[in-house]
């Protein structure tokens, strides 16, 4: 590297590899390549796949889960986890359906959905940050607690009869085939991407996930950051509850059953380290696209749901194991 005139020689360069090379070698590139392959495979497998309205329908397979996934990604990077997100959806949806019986209108329903999400997130957050309990245990507990409350209220009943303007959140289209949910997904992807990668807050999330002790010693208010992350995850679950309830048009206590695992799968597939400290929002976005396309493509081929989950599970293990296998081979274990 030659020095421009007037600049003094630098002892330490900022970076050795430029950003372009980094992006090319990244996990996200690998995922993107897989996404393209799946896309091509889908177009070959079914002639209906490329239809714009079909593709638009396919996005509903991931938009709600991915919205939670963004907040979950931050939470997992910070070294915590929230397994109660699907429980929060059930409770928030039940609260909305219950309020509906008293003639609460759409703005009120939305407020209730958000508030329940926030309260559930706060409950998890207080247990983890104030009492110092492990989040995996706390949220396994609240997962059953939240959904259990929903069962108590509903039994085997369902709430129906949501107002027609409430349907916009889950069934509305902003422009042509572009649904309101897809727009919301993109906006949240952008917001969370910026928060994680371009703000002090995001930097602190990484620092906490990598070394909580050193982060605390560096003056980061760790409990406050984690509390905010639990609140965010709760609110995102509330938003997902609004969209999903609107899309289904009814509330049953089994709503969004086992979504927490699909959300965590999406986040981990997106390259977020389950041990904390590493990951990106772009990875989660691509992982969401992959999971959405796989589910939809297999659906077009009339593959039953249980086979789909086998496929998703296999994909997760393959995508995580392959790079590790390559490094093992490269470091000369097999010389």
């Amino acid at each position, binding site marked *: 590297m030659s020095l421009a005139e007037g600049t003094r020689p*630098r*002892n*330490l*360069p*900022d*970076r*050795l590899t430029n950003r372009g090379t980094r992006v090319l070698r990244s996990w996200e590139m690998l995922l993107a390549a897989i996404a393209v392959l799946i896309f091509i495979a889908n177009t070959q497998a079914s002639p209906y796949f490329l239809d714009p309205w079909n593709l638009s329908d396919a996005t509903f397979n991931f938009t709600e889960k991915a919205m939670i996934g963004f907040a979950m990604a931050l939470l997992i990077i910070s070294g915590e986890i929230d397994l109660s997100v699907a429980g929060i959806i059930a409770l928030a949806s039940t609260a909305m359906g219950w309020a509906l019986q008293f003639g609460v209108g759409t703005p009120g329903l939305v407020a209730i959905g958000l508030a329940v999400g926030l309260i559930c997130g706060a409950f998890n957050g207080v247990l983890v940050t104030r009492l110092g309990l492990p989040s995996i245990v706390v949220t396994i507990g609240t997962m059953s607690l939240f959904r259990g409350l929903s069962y108590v209220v509903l039994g085997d009943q369902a709430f129906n009869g949501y107002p027609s303007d409430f349907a916009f959140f889950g069934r509305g289209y902003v422009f042509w085939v572009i649904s309101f949910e897809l727009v919301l997904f993109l906006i949240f992807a952008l917001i969370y991407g*910026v928060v994680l990668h*371009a*703000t*002090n*807050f*995001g*930097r*602190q999330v*990484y*620092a906490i996930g*990598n*070394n909580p*002790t*050193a*982060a*605390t*010693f*560096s*003056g*980061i*208010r760790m409990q406050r950051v984690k509390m905010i992350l639990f609140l965010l995850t709760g609110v995102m679950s509330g938003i997902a509850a609004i969209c999903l309830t609107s899309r289904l048009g009814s509330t049953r206590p089994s709503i969004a059953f086992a979504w927490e695992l699909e959300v965590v799968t999406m986040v981990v597939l997106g390259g977020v380290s389950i041990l904390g*400290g*590493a990951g990106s929002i772009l990875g989660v976005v691509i992982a969401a696209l992959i999971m959405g396309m796989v589910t939809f493509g297999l659906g077009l081929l009339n593959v039953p749901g249980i086979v789909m989950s086998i496929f998703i599970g296999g994909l997760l293990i393959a995508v995580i194991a392959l790079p590790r296998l390559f490094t093992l081979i490269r*470091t*000369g*274990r097999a010389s």
Partner: protein
Amino acid sequence: MNRMTDIETLTSADPVLRLSGITKTFPGVTALSGVELALYPGQVTALVGENGAGKSTLVKILTGIYVPNEGQILVDEQPTRFTTATDASDAGITAIHQETVLFDELSVAENIYLGHAPRGRFGLVDWAKMRADATEILDRIGAKIDPRTPLRELGIASKHLVAIARALSVDARVVVMDEPTAALSQAEIEELYELVERLKSEGKAILFISHKFDEIFRIADRYTVFRDGEMVDAGLIAEVTEDQLVEKMVGRSMDAIFPQRDHTPGDTVLSVDGYSHPTEFEDISFDLRQGEILGFYGLVGAGRSEFMQALFGVTKPSGGSVTIDGQEISIRSPAEAIEKGIVYVPEDRGKQGAITAMPIFQNVTLPSLAQTSNRGFVRMAEEFALARKYTERLDLRAASLDQNVGNLSGGNQQKVVIAKWLATKPKVIILDEPTKGIDVGSKAAVHEFMAELAAEGLSVIMVSSEIPEILGMSDRVIVMRDGLIAARFDGEGLTPEALVRAAAGYEESAA
């Protein structure tokens, strides 16, 4: 000296283990380039070199953790290849590491035999034999520890002895000791020397890594010097002097160890009054003036680090007050301490100081993000500028500012941590064992830098267990013992003997 007569016997032996032309590179860094090392049966070879010279990398190659890019490992002159830690231990190489990895929840015997426990019928662990064998090994190294004790009940020095016992529990021909005395008291160091002598007489080849020259000249037979990843020199200890060895190590001769300072302390910056903690320390009071270096001396466990961490807001004190620039403040978290201008460079770099999986520049700016950002949004250019400013001042050796701190040597990691704190522009900097585990060259650099900071008006509290450092650097010294201030020295009467007496509690009637 019977040493001279020994030279013939020393040189007649064939090496057990020989490294030839070993090169190890990491992305952007060459850690070792074509180094040679030979270890002989019944002899102690001292490996000396500054931090970053490649000693730790070499240990990792010897123990099979790293695979070299080039070069050969020869056992009994037969080329072999270590690709896993098991390969190395099968070849009879065992290591006692700088920071030992043991398990608090297991018993002493289980720690010693983890991974190679004696088996009885049906492949089950033979607990009786394990305990008996453990007792035997512990006896052999002179450690009075019951093998059934859970490890967490032991102190740091006893844990170290367990680590040594663990290393000796495999039938080793080569024992690598990576700074084995760093955590030990003087009496324990003496016991370790005896142990080394015993291992020598058993015919084991010992690689002894240390920064302490008195140690090296006392127990080593041979030396090998590394500098910047290359082998500079090797030979017999009997044929070299301390000064020559230092010169080879740093590539220059060093005269004055401690910097000369003109010290005219200014106004009182920090006053601590009656600081107490339920269990760790009590009634700590002192004043710190501008531009002053205040030394805190004491034995390990005297409560110095615990007090400093309370002052920094990590733990809560049970009483007392802190005044900074005449204003009484309360410090409930490190964030508040940093805000008020008090920063703490911890003793445990890897756990408390640096975030090793993050790049240098992000480590440096972590407490200063408010400075480098705009409305909460990070500005990388500002971050690089800030990181460069302070790391260049500390003469950090790295491939780039984007390199992960974990890839740096201990001394350079310490520089990153110090840079991180200086970037916050503190009023008071607390350095907890700032030169622990650092080689002579880096030590002098850190000392010089401390003197410079004090001259610029920064107030320094230096916790140190090294008497020369305390004597050489401090304007005033406070000695702590069992959580209390045992003595204060304002320049007069400050002798090594007085420090040791105060720290150990052998005062002749404190007036």
